[in-house]
């Protein structure tokens, strides 16, 4: 997969307008935007690192830490909220000892809050590694996580 350096090099002549598209492309390729990538970008665009970082943090779409093995998207839309998706989010936070960057203490899980997953009929809903899981309760969520963790151990 293309690295930040290759992505920057591929663009040839650079202007500051390309900052956001480049950030997007780097995130696409690497899963997140690393400090190293932002430093390279700053150099290539001849703009201070603080400006690159400032722009990147202004947009919610950018992540600054790598994704864990398992990605859980928690829907925080209205329908799910009414069905207490907040309790699910809080439970995940406690159980996985979530760090500030949204990943679990062991780095294996990454939790992303999403405005709406578009599956309101099965609210409250999460998406785990691309699969929808609906009508969730804290107990069912626990069972699901147990399964994922057990699966990882079995594979190991």
């Amino acid at each position, binding site marked *: 997969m293309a690295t930040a350096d290759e992505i920057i090099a591929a663009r040839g002549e650079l202007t500051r307008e390309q900052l956001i598209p480049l950030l997007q492309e780097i995130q696409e390729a690497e899963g997140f935007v690393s400090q190293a990538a932002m430093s390279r970008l700053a150099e290539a665009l001849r703009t*201070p690192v*603080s*400006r690159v970082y*400032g722009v990147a943090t202004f947009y*919610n779409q950018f992540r600054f830490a790598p994704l864990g093995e398992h990605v859980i998207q928690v829907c925080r839309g209205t329908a799910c909220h009414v069905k207490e998706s907040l309790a699910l989010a809080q439970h995940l936070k406690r159980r996985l000892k979530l760090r500030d960057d949204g990943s679990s203490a062991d780095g294996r899980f990454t939790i992303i809050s999403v405005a709406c997953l578009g599956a309101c009929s099965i609210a409250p809903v999460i998406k785990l590694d691309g699969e929808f899981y609906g009508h969730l309760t804290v107990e069912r969520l626990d069972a699901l996580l147990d399964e994922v963790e057990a699966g990882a151990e079995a594979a190991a």
Partner: protein
Amino acid sequence: MSITINGKEIDVAANETVLQTARRAGIDIPHLCSLDWAPSPSASCRLCVVEVEGLPRLQTSCSLEARDGMSVQTHTPRILKARRAILELLIASHPQDCLTCVRAGGCELAVLAGDLGVRERRYVGAVKEHPIDISSPSLWRDPNKCVLCGRCVTMCHSVQGIGAIDFVGRGFQTRVAPGFSVGLNVSDCVYCGQCARVCPTGAIVERSHVEGVVAALADPDTVVVAQVAPAVPATLLERRTKTQDVHTMLERLAGALKHVGFDAVFDTSFAADVTVMEEATELLERIQDNGVLPMFTSCSPAWVHFVETHRPDLIPHLSTCKSPQQMAGALIKEIYPAYAGLGDKRLVVVSIMPCTAKKFEAQEQTGVDYVLTTRELDALWGRFGVDLAHFAEPAPLDAPFAQASGAGRLFAGSGGVMEAAVRTAHKLVTGHELEGGPRVNEARGSEGARHFTIAAAGVDLNLAVVNGLGRLQETLDDLLAGDPPVHFVEVMSCPGGCVGGGGQPYDTDGDAVHERLERLYDADKRSSLRTSHDNADVRALYEDVLGRPLGEVAHRLLHREYVDRRPAVDSVSV
């Protein structure tokens, strides 16, 4: 061209904003996000709104060009109401520790609240919980006190060309921070303090050394001496003191410092004279021996830090001279204990500087223990009840470094190191003084970069003065590739030189800086001693202690080495 403000006709200058025109006419329109010398890049705070005839909506006067025939109202009930609403929202989430804030008594935000009649908090917003950054030896940042006006960002990016800090995040979490939200000490910051000089609140302030100084003064086993940079008296003359003379002010300042317990007070300009001797000799040696040219001055610690952290490839170009602050410190510590018979008492050297980067320098080198900025002096006066405007008990500067030349004083302004060095270099090369008097007009002025040539004994010295780090980066390539090659470049980090330094009084208009420069020129003109090489105390110092410029002792006490401080590339990867 003229516009009408509140019914009165007022002439406008070219490219002026309505805010600026009004200010010249004595009408103060409140403004937070703009600086008086720069058009507002963001026009985001909206405190400066005015009514313009023919336009239904309120206009931001900081971004509104004054156009002939325009009619403007600045303080109607509608405007006052709008401004007040803005301010009320601004302070809704502001911390409540105003009584103990460093800016207590001088906070622009608090003054604005008073001016706009905000006398209670009607909205209480969520409390911000950003970490405070005390990582820098020069500056402390408390983002919770920040009103996001962006002045510091303007100074750091547009004026200084560094860009160490910027807006980070969005919404309620928005804050000003270095890239990656790291501490200032590991950011691109060069500690110039221009951000602090313009901050309206206590969100960026110098790292205070006041308590350390007060404790040293209270210790009977410690002898505390001060050295005062020439920019400081040139600035304190703004305090309704009845004199306008820099030297008189310096002696009054010495009197006040002794009153609060300092045992001796020295003039950093003395060390500037020593710097001239060393630096002029170094320059001529480099020219003679095909050394690395151009040679850049090394007096300005933010510039030195810039080289060490951003452009270590330029290290061979830096003069090896310590800054005058450190030369003075080294000389005081070497000579004064025996001279004054201090026995086993501890000696503490405090320097009074217009500069925040000097605090970093003091931490890295051994000559100086504490650095007080011009601003911090007020805390000292407050503690000991000194009213400087009326304090009229002068004291002479102390031996053995009592005398300073007019040239040494000029160090405080852009072009001053160059002018002083040219006076002495000419003498060293030709054996006689500059024809036409000591004044070097070409070095003076406020343009970003000034190039000129001085002929001395058949050699053309190609010289350049760079006024401010922002301008430096535009001209650096030309200076390095100069044809004919440039010999010597003066770089001062702050616009106007030390008189516009980051430790100087809070200020959003550049006017005072020009007045301070004029006072320095005046002090030089009136001095009976105009050249560093004729300073009798400097001569005595070379005879008794230093030997010759660049000699062994001079080398040990007055010169230094530089280090490549670029962060290792890997340290920034995740």
